[in-house]
């Protein structure tokens, strides 16, 4: 079954210098466990391949059924130096919520 990430999780993103982070909070334990297996760093890196220059690092928060992705060096220097329209990565969470997933896959 193909669904969008936003159907099963909330997302919020922000900046840390030239890095951004996206918190992904799942609504159910079942979907969180699924995501721990399949929503890998490389999937995120591919999805945002146009902007990510560094690595993607993933952290797990079992207590709130959440994954935290750090997108290294994706904000063109960040802050006032960046020439990106979204220099603070505010919209990346919403962009990720549109990712299509095959949750039976």
């Amino acid at each position: 079954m193909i669904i969008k990430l936003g159907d099963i999780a909330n997302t919020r993103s922000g900046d840390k210098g030239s890095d951004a982070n996206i918190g992904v909070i799942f609504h159910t334990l079942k979907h969180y466990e699924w995501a721990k297996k399949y929503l890998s760093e490389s999937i995120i890196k591919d999805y945002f391949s146009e902007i990510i220059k560094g690595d993607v690092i993933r952290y797990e928060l079992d207590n709130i059924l959440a994954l935290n992705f750090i997108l290294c060096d994706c904000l063109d220097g960040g802050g006032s130096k960046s020439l990106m329209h979204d220099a603070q990565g505010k919209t990346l969470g919403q962009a990720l919520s549109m990712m299509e997933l095959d949750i039976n896959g």
Partner: protein
Amino acid sequence: MKKTIRIANGQGFWGDSVHAPLDLLKYGKLDFLTLDYLAEVTMSIMQKQKRKNPNLGYASDFVQLIKDGISYIEKNNIKVISNAGGANPESCREEISKILKDNSSNKKVGIISGDDILHKVENFHNKGYDLNHLDTNEKFSSIKDRIVSANVYINSFSIATALEKGADIILAGRVSDPGLVLGPCINHFNWSENNFDRLASGTVAGHIIECGAQCSGGNYSRWYEIEDLVDIGYPIVEMSESGDFIVFKDKNKGGLINKLTVSEQLLYEMGDPQNYISPDVKVDFTSVNLVEKEKNIVGVSNVKGFSPTDTYKVSICYFDGYKAEGSLTISGPDAKEKSKLASDLVWGRLKKRGIEFKRKKTDFIGLSACPGGVDDENKSANEIVLKLSVHDDSKRKVEMFGKEIAPLITAGPPGVTGFSGGRPKPKEVIAYWPTLIPKELIKIEVDVR
């Protein structure tokens, strides 16, 4: 001693609602109101203001808030804790003191200083502290002649000390954002420097409310579920001695507080959740337990903390050339193709005159410009905002760029409009340089009067 204290946040950044903090003062059932005015580069703006006029360089919105809110501060006996002092807490205090005098108020104003090390960094570097860039490890020597501001994120015990000395209104400079909430907890519950779990609880409480409405329904993924965003309530924490606390809002206000709104904010600007480093404590965000107690009330417990590092984070801002950006709207038909042509024309015309830039960027707003092109290949739009921007060390080159935007209206494709505000002007780029410094080098001073 009161068993619990109530701390609200009415300002997540300079530019946030001017009504929210006043509404919280009117609401009244608070012990402390906190206000965060400082983003990473705000200090550099304030340093520049101060250089132009030695009486400026602080958050002027705060002065207006005290003017409008002093009667409620008096009536409801609320202490106000802010980092509004910015680069010039003394001048800010002078303005506040005038207002207090005009209103026959005996409230005391405390200043926390020692965070500003603008005039000391070079000396520290000469003494052998490397001050290399925290993330990239670049050498400090590459920016040392271009520094605009340098501030240490100082600890929250400074705020507790100011309260201890009787301050009713606190003007800190660069304290850590969650420290505005942790400070009054330390003071009220007498938490010690080694009580890491308690310090971590106060830090998490601060982290949850430091961005104002971002935990009470703002910027929320399921925005369509929120009944009233017009009159959104800003968050309030009720902290207990055990470190357990609740997050809630004025019942008569809109917005939403539940596990998901709080969880989203817990992860906001988060790095490694098991190693959240503040000046006071290292926090493990994977330990936090959230419970929905009632509608719009979330309980937070079980926060674990560990001993802090022996360094403070320093936020240095430095001059890094000039940038400019210009936008035009390009209508359909063929908005995408015409936008591409228009951008090629600008860059082509500049190149023909031998002008190239250190960095340049073309954005087609309307074609997934925000996330940098995710999913834009097959998309089209019936109109597009074309945004062009450049960065260079040469102010003249950036000026030349600004002169090439408007000609597109008559010398480009048809259907180009939306040029307003004149030619884009070169703006100074103030870049951000995070680094670390040993804590023993920093002397924090608290002055209450």
